[in-house]
Every structure is written in C-alpha cells, then in structure tokens.
C-alpha cells in the first residue's frame, strides 16, 4: 500500500512502430526519444508547454480531431500518426501564415542562417508564401543597453515571456493586445531600457527562435543563440 507509486508504462504505436512510454509523457517527448521528427516552434525543452504554434499537430486513430503533440499525453493503445499528406498540407500553410504575418526577410535579418523559422521552412520544403503578406508597421525597441527587440520578426511564440518568468523569475516580459495586434511588452508597456525588473540576463534573447530578439552590435554570423543551459537550470529548479 504505502510504497511509492511507480509511473505506469504504456505501449502504443507511433507511425506504425510499437513503442513503450511512461505515463504522463507527451507524444512529442516520445517521438523525440524514437528519433521521429515533429516540427515545433513554441516548444523548447525546459519551458512549460504553450501549444500556440500548432505545427506539432498529429493524428490519433479513432478521432477526427488533431492533437498538439507537445501537450497531449500518451495513453495505452494509442495509435499516433506524425506525418501524413493532410498534416503536411496543414503544416505548410501554418508556416506560410507565420511568414505572411509580419516581416520575415531573411537576407537582411541578424538571425539569417540560425533561425528556427527559417530552418523549418527549409526542412518542410517551403519555396514560396501563398498568402499575401500583411506587413503591419511595427516598431523596433532599441532602448536596452545590450539587446534589441524587433517586433517585425516576432512570431509570438512567447518563449521569451516564459523564460523570463519561469527561469529568471523577473516577469518583465508579457503580452498586450489581442489577435493580430498582440505584442510582446516590457513591464506595463514601457521601453525595455527603462525596465526596473529586467535583469539583463539575456535569456530571452537566447531562447528567441527568430531575429526578434538579438544582441546589439552582433553580425548575422555572430548571433548564434545558445540554449544548452535551459534544461540544466530547469532541472536545478526541480531538485
């Protein structure tokens, strides 16, 4: 009775292969363990899941709905399909939406060559954007001493918001507005440079998938983001 409860092990099928998974494991974690690639943007190991980019949707047998792999936990006997014609079409369109939403001109971006969005576009074989560009006029906040925030490149994945609150504990970053006018803000929508809560730790810059957050004075070749510290800091928190 009083023994520590052990996680149960489920057996299920992912892309036709029989696999075993721990209870509470997500489909995404399971896929990664089994070297199955599922595209993601808002997911980052070490941060709580967000479920906003919709790129990781997968099919589960017996349901017409699609499920975000990052937030769906495994169940016994589940049959997951991570790649199909339908999913490929959807992912391609979602990626196109991200490119059409703001301004992603790679050739003049500081993240050119090491951008998660660009990487996925190449990986999914994207050759053009079918939807018209919306090109809203967005500002660039260069008020911080070391960093720069270019809203034109932001895909609202909120990795920066999560790392700032969950790991650094500063809660400087937040979101304002709704729908397409949502925007990352600092404190109560002040200039980043004026923020009293920002510790200038730079974590947000390093987790940003695109060129929306960058270090000042760095060229595209130098602006490589490092994230190896993140799972480590998270595991330290959990201990």
């Amino acid at each position: 009775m009083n023994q520590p409860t052990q996680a149960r092990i489920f057996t299920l099928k992912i892309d036709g292969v029989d696999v075993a998974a721990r209870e509470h494991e997500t489909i995404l974690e399971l896929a990664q363990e089994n070297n199955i690639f599922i595209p993601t943007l808002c997911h980052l190991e070490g941060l709580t899941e967000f479920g906003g980019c919709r790129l990781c949707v997968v099919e589960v047998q017996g349901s017409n709905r699609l499920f975000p792999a990052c937030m769906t936990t495994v169940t016994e006997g589940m049959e997951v399909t991570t790649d199909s014609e339908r999913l490929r079409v959807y992912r391609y369109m979602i990626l196109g939406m991200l490119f059409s939403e703001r301004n992603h001109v790679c050739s003049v971006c500081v993240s050119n060559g090491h951008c998660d969005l660009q990487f996925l576009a190449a990986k999914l074989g994207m050759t053009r954007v079918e939807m018209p560009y919306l090109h809203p006029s967005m500002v660039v906040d260069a008020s911080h001493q070391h960093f720069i925030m270019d809203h034109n490149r932001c895909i609202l994945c909120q990795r920066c918001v999560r790392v700032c609150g969950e790991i650094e504990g500063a809660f400087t970053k937040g979101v304002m507005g709704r729908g397409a006018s949502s925007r990352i803000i600092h404190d109560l929508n002040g200039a980043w440079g004026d923020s009293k809560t920002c510790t200038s730790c730079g974590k947000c810059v390093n987790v940003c998938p695109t060129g929306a957050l960058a270090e000042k004075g760095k060229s595209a070749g130098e602006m490589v983001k490092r994230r190896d510290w993140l799972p480590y800091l998270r595991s330290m928190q959990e201990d």
Partner: protein
Amino acid sequence: MMIEKFAAITAEERQAENEHDHTIKVCVAAGCLSSQSNEVLTALKNGLGEHRGCHVKGVGCMGLCSQGPLVAVATKTNATPQTVMYQNVKAEDATEIVQALGKEPVARLALNTDVPFFQRQTKIVLENCGAIDPERIEEYIAAGGYQGLLTTLTESSPSEVIDEIVRSGLRGRGGGGYPTGLKWTTVAKMDGPGKYVICNADEGDPGAFMDRSVLESDPHRVLEGMAIAGYAVGASEGYIYVRGEYPLAVERLKIAIRQANRLGVLGSKVCGTTFDFNVHIRLGAGAFVCGEETALIASIEGKRGTPRPRPPYPAEHGLWGKPTLINNVETFANVPAIIRKGGAWYATIGTAKSKGTKVFALAGSIQNTGLIEVPMGMSLSEIIHEIGGVPIGKCKAVQTGGPSGGCIPAAYFDTPVDYESLKALGSIMGSGGMIIMDESSSMVDVARYFMEFCMSESCGKCVTCRVGTVHMYNLLDKIYQGKAWRRDLNTLEKLCDLVMNTSLCGLGQTAPNPVLSTLRYFRHEYLNKLLDGAEDGRMATAATTQPLEARP
C-alpha cells in the same frame, strides 16, 4: 428553522399583496431602462397620490423589449384576476394609467397579449421574469424560490441530486450542449476538498442577451442553482464571472448575494445545515474569448485570458488546479425548477435528445424583438413567423449560434430547434441568439461581419486563428467588394478547413462556420461577386472595366 422563515416570508408577501387590488409592474431590466422606464416607475409611484389600493414595483424583463417601456397592471377586484399590459409607456402617461385602474384600460397604450408571442411560450427559466422584483429576496421566496435548495440539503444526498439532473436530460446552455448531469457526475467523482463551481455569465455573442436578462430579472434563481450544484459536486466556493459591460446585472447580483447571505441561504451553514457555499463575483473586461472555459478560469486566476488545450478538462484540472464545475447562467437557472418539480417532469418537455426549454433572443429584421422561452423542438418557422411576427416570405435566413454558428435559409424553417437538427444544418444552437435577416442582407456581408468579430476577438495565442482570421476576413472583404477571383474563393475554403481543424480553442475552431454555412446555402451570392464567377467560368463583364488590384 429555515422552513418556518420561508413560510413567514411567504405569508407576509401574500398579505401585503392582498392589501392591494392592483399591482403595477414596471420593467426595469436593461432594455426598458434604456428607454427611461425608471422615469415611468417614479412617475407612477408619484401619480398614485391617495390611491391606497395600488402597489407599484419594478420587475424584470417581460420579453417584448422592442415595445418598451412595458408596464403590466394586475387587478383582482373581480372574481377573476386580470392583467393588462401597456407598451411604449412614457412618464407623462402615468396619470392616465392610474386613473384607468379598475376601469377600462387605456386603449392608446394597451398591448394585445392574446398573440402567439405571449401564448406560445413555455416559461421555466423565465417564470419569475417580469413578475417579481429582482432586488427583493422575499418575492423570490414567495414565488417558491430556495425551497428546492432547502429540500435538497435536508432530504437528499448529493448523488440523488445528480440523479435528478441526469434524469431531467438537461444539457449545457452555454453553446456546446454537453449533458449537465454527466458533467456534475464527473466533478463529484473527483477527489476533494477545494472544488469550485463557476457560473459563466460572460455572454459575448453579438445579439445575445438571454443571460443578461436572467441575471437582471431573477438573480436568486442562478444563485440557488449554483448552491444546489455546489452541494451535489462537493464544492463550497462559487464564482460568477460576469461581463463588465453588464453593470446592472452585477449590481443586482451583489444585492442578491448580500440578501441571501443575510437570510442564511448562502454563506456558511446554508439553511442551518453543515454545507457552506460562498459566492464571489468576478468581472470580465470584455474579451469574448474569456467565455471559453479555460480562458475564463485563467482570467479568474488573474492571468491573461487565453485558453489552454483540453484535456485536461476543468472538471479535472480547473480553477487553481482544482476540479471545477463550470456551467452557463441558463443551465443553472433551470436547476431549481428541476429540483422542485422533478427530473421526470422536465424530461417530458422537449424532444428525445434535447429536453426542456430554451431562451432565445430575437433580433434583426423582426417585428417582435425580444426574449422568448420555448420548448425544444419547436420549429424555426413557429419561432420566426408566429412568435416573431415576421410575415412568411419576408425572411431570407436566420443566423443562430453567433460567431460560432451559421445561417439557415428560409427553406429549412420547418426544422425543429434542437441541438442535433441545427448541427445537421451546419449551424449550432449556441447560447440562443437568433438574428433574422430579410432579402436585403448580403450573405457575404454577414459572413464578413462575423469574421471581423472573430478576428478582433481572437486572443492571439495560436497562429492559425490569429493569422487565419485576418486572411479570411481580407478575402471576404475582397469578395464583397467585387475584387476577387475564383482562386480567392478556393483559398478561402482551404483556410476555413485549416483554421477549423488546427486552432487551439473553440473560437478558432468554429470561426469558419458562418462562412461555411453561407457557402453551403448561398454559394451563388459568392459566385456572383467574383470577377470570374459566371457559371461557365468566363470572366464577368466587370473585370474588363475594373483595373486589376494593385499588388501590395
């Protein structure tokens, strides 16, 4: 003892009523208030003068909001009590109304109540609306209120309460139609303590005002329903999440909660039993998405109101991570009647799968704009033509279910109104808004309107809804302006499919519904607007006269 207290209050109310031969009821719900019914109320009170046999009071919504301010005069001088209704009453009419007491009614203002609008309704949720003063708990009790709660607490076990709800066949009135009994069972089975009950009063659909009327006209009913639910599922805290745009509803709820706490039918040791139930009010700030249950919970917790993927459902992981029961205002308002009269009684009303009644808000190009309550299964035609008073042939379509619903053309008006039938037609029951459209409405424009609503109400969390609604709106606008081609229509359909299938929450998943349903029934209206829309695929003549759209 509570039961004696109730009896004393009821006796007092009856006596006070018997002292008067006439009772004048003035509607003081939002609709009539906006046409100065409060001035009518004051004028009538002042106008009484030495008239001792008459009592004037403010009551809730009487339904026919378009003819407001409404005044009802109940007379019981003769053997048979009579009620006369007056419409479009102004403060100046007060003396005339008072003078007519006990005589012939003022013909100029009289409203004929012998019409389908009044005769065809079945009132359960609205039974006290327009009859009692919403700011006095005594009147609610005299009308049989809180008796259900009292008998529940003293005579039934929680599982018996749930059985009663299951037997009634009640389904959620917030839009989804999820079986209420099943939801209660799930929450009851979760391990406590620290469960919550939430009442969703964030009514955000354009054109809907059912929940608002219930809260403004009979707030105690919702509180009683919540308390019964709290007892059934084992929760001792309740939250009502009301839109900030409903100040009158909030005010009346505050008064109601204060009165109920003072009387001991809410708060600690409810009705002298060991059951505690405290109700708190939380105000929404006008975001439509905060009506979605997980976003609503985030908002109560003080976070940004954005949804999260379900499962886990709130029944398992809700407010502050605790098992939470969340139901709509109208769902809770049905509960006291079910408990009082029994689930079996409730199940006799309605259709096989949709039990009971439904409140609808009629709006649009319709004669009788207002609030009605009809049994499930009544046909659209009865609602629109008979109750609504729209002549046959003068109505093109009806939009049900708000931005998540669809347009049903007049040809399908013999469909019974129940969850399944509306769904089969590509619309939904939704929360109960019905917008009636005449021949002059363009269906493309209707679709564009609802898409604009979804676009500005999208929370922005997930990409497909945030960006997809903008692209869909732009395409609809382009079609409406007559600047679009067939391929634009194709793209629109592809986007509808994508947004429906990949969005995170119900807002995005249902945002394409108005487009899909208008495309299903009124495709020709879209085609007629396309530059190359003619049936044989030839370009319409307009194309030769209009310049190609400049590329951005």
